C-alpha cells in the first residue's frame, strides 16, 4: 500500500500541464521568429547601407567620367588635340558637301544622293 502511494506521488510531480507546455512552445516560437526577423532586418539594413555606400562611390565615378568626357569633347580641347597632331580643320564649304536624303520614292531606308550643281 505504502509503496503504491509513493509511486503515485512521483508521477504527479513530473507532469507538465499541456496548456502551459503549449503556451511555452508558442512563446518560444514567437521569440525565435522575432529574433530571426530582427537579425534579418539588421542584416538587410547593413546590406542597404553597404549598397548606399557603393552607389555613392559609383555616382562619384560617373560624375568624374562625365566631367572628363565633357572636357575632352569641348571645342577648345578638340582644336588643341587637332593642332597637336598637325591637323587643320575648317567647316566645309557648300560645294564640298554631298547631301543624302531619305529616298521614299524607291524604298524606305535607302538614301538618295542630291547632286548639287557645284559638285559636278
Amino acid at each position: 500500500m505504502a509503496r503504491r502511494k509513493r509511486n503515485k506521488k512521483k508521477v504527479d510531480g513530473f507532469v507538465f500541464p499541456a496548456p502551459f507546455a503549449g503556451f511555452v512552445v508558442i512563446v518560444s516560437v514567437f521569440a525565435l521568429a522575432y529574433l530571426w526577423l530582427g537579425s534579418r532586418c539588421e542584416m538587410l539594413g547593413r546590406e542597404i547601407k553597404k549598397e548606399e555606400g557603393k552607389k555613392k562611390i559609383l555616382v562619384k565615378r560617373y560624375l568624374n567620367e562625365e566631367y572628363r568626357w565633357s572636357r575632352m569633347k569641348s571645342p577648345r580641347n578638340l582644336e588643341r588635340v587637332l593642332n597637336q597632331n598637325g591637323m587643320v580643320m575648317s567647316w566645309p564649304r557648300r560645294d564640298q558637301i554631298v547631301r543624302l536624303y531619305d529616298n521614299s520614292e524607291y524604298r524606305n531606308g535607302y538614301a538618295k544622293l542630291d547632286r548639287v550643281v557645284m559638285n559636278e
Partner: protein
Amino acid sequence: MSSRGFYIRAFVSATMLLVALGGLGFRLAFLHLGGHQQSKRAIERTIIAGRGYIFDCKGGDNILAMNLGVKDVCVSPKTLVENETVDEVSALLARNLGKDANKIAQNIRKRSVKEFAYVERYVHEDRIANIQELKVDGVFMQDKTVRYYPQGNFMSHVLGFVNYEGVGSLGVEQRVDSYLRGSPGLLESKVDARRRELYTKRGTYIPAMEGADVTLTIDQNIQYMVEKALDEVVAKHNPKGAWAIVQRIETGEILGMASRPSFNLNDFRTADSDLKLNRAIGVNFEPGSTMKALTIAAALNAGVITPSTMIDCENGQWFYGGRVLTDGGHSYGIMSVADIIKKSSNIGTAKIALMMGRKLQYDYMKQFGVGDRMGIELPGEEAGVLAPIKRWSKICPTRIAFGQAYSVTALQVLNTFCTIANNGYRMKPYLVKQITSGDGEVIYRGGPKVVNRPIGVTAANEMAKILATVTENGGTGRRARIDGFTVAGKTGTAQKVKDGTYSAWVGSFVGFVPAENPQIGVIVVVDEPEGVHAGGVVAAPAFREIVDQTVSYFDIQPATWTEVAQR
C-alpha cells in the same frame, strides 16, 4: 542538512537574483525609455539636394555646369617640420598643382606649430592622383562636392557661378537659381553608441528633390567661335573690353554671348568685379553710327523718305542749333538715303531725323526697345538711357539720329537689327530653352515671343537692302563681307566720354546674314581699342570671322532678292 536550511538558502538566492534582475531591468527600462537618452540617440539630418546641370542647346550631350567631388589638399605643417620633409613635400605638391615650391615651403614653415593648413582647395582628383598614391606622411585630402565648370573660363558671364553658400551668384546660375537648387530632403533616425545610423530605427525619410536641369539656347560651338574671335580682337587691338552676341533672327534665341575680359568660373574667388561684368548686357554705351539704321528704318516706315530720296549732306560741315556737325572730314554733297547709310553720313541722318520730327523719332526708338530692358534671363541687364522728349535740346534729335546723346546695350542694338531683318517683328531675346525636373518632366519651356512690330515688311526689306550696301565696295563695312553671301550691317565708331571729355572710342559692327533671307544676327563691340578705333577695322573682321563659320555650321544657304520676293 535540514530542509529548513535549504529553504532559507533558496529563498535568499532567489531574492538576491530577483533584486539583481529587477535592478538590471529597471536600468534597461531607464536607458531605453528615458526621454533624455532617446533624444541623444535620435538624429535629424537634412539631405542636401544636388544642384541641376546646365547644358548647351544640345541638351545632355554637352555639360556646361555640374556637381563634382573634388578635394582640398591639406598638410600638417607640424608633422612635416618634425619629419624634416618640408622641401621634399613642397616640391612634390608644386609639381602636381602647378604652384611655386618655395612659396608652399614658406607657408608650411610659417605655420610650423599647427596641425592643419590648406595648400590648394577644390582640386580635381586627376591632378593629385600621384600624391594620393604616394601616401606622404603629413599630406592629406578632404573631400568636397562643389559646382564645377568643365570648360573653365568658357561662357563665364552667361553661366555665372555658385558662391560658398551654394547660391547662384551670376548669370544663369543666379537667374534660375530656384530651379537649379532643388528641395532638400529629411532623415529622422537613431544612431548607435558610435553615432552610426541604425538603419532599422529609421523613421522619416523624405528623399531630396534634385535640382532641375537647365538647357540653354546657346550652342557651345558657336560660343567657341565667338570667344575665339574676341580673343583675337583683344590680342590685336588691346582694348579695354570687347563683347559679342549671336542671335537667331526668327526666334530671338541667343546662340552665343561672350565678353572680355573674362575669368575662370572654377576660380571665381580670385576674379574682381570688373572681370565678372557681362558687358554684352551690362554696359550702356553710345552706339554711334550703328543706330543710324533705326532712324532711317523709322523714316522709311513713316513714309518720310524712300531709299532714293536725295538729301543734301553739305560739304562736310553743317551748322544747326548753333553747333557744327561734321562728316569726319568727308564732303558728300547730295546723296541718296541708301548712300547715307553706305557712307555713314552724320549730316544726312540728322536731316532725316529733323524731317521726321522729334515725337515720331522718340516713339520709334521706344518701339524698338531703346531705354527698356530686353528681359533676357540674365541678371544685371541694363536698360540703356533715353531722355524723355521734354528734356531734349534743339540739337538733340540730330545727335540721337546717329547714335549720340543716348545709350544702349549691345543686346538692344542687335535686337534692333534683328527686328529689321525679321520683317519688322521684334522678338524677345531668350537663352533658356527648357528646364527639366529631376524626374524628366519639362517644367519650363522658352520659346519665340513677338514683342511688337515697330516697322512693316516694306520698310524692313528696303532697310535690309540699304544695309547690304554697307559691305559693298565703297561702304564702311567691307571687312565684314564673306564669300558667297550678302551681308547686311552697319559700322559704328562712337566717341566715349572718358574723364569728362569725349576722348575715347567704341568701335562696333552689327549685321545679319544672308541679307536676302536673314537667319543670324551678330554684333561685335570693341571698347577703347589701341591705335585704330574705326568699327569697320576693329570689329568688322571679328564679325566676319564669326559669321563665316556660323553659316557653314548651320548650313545656311545663300539666297537672292528675286528668290525671296517670289516666295
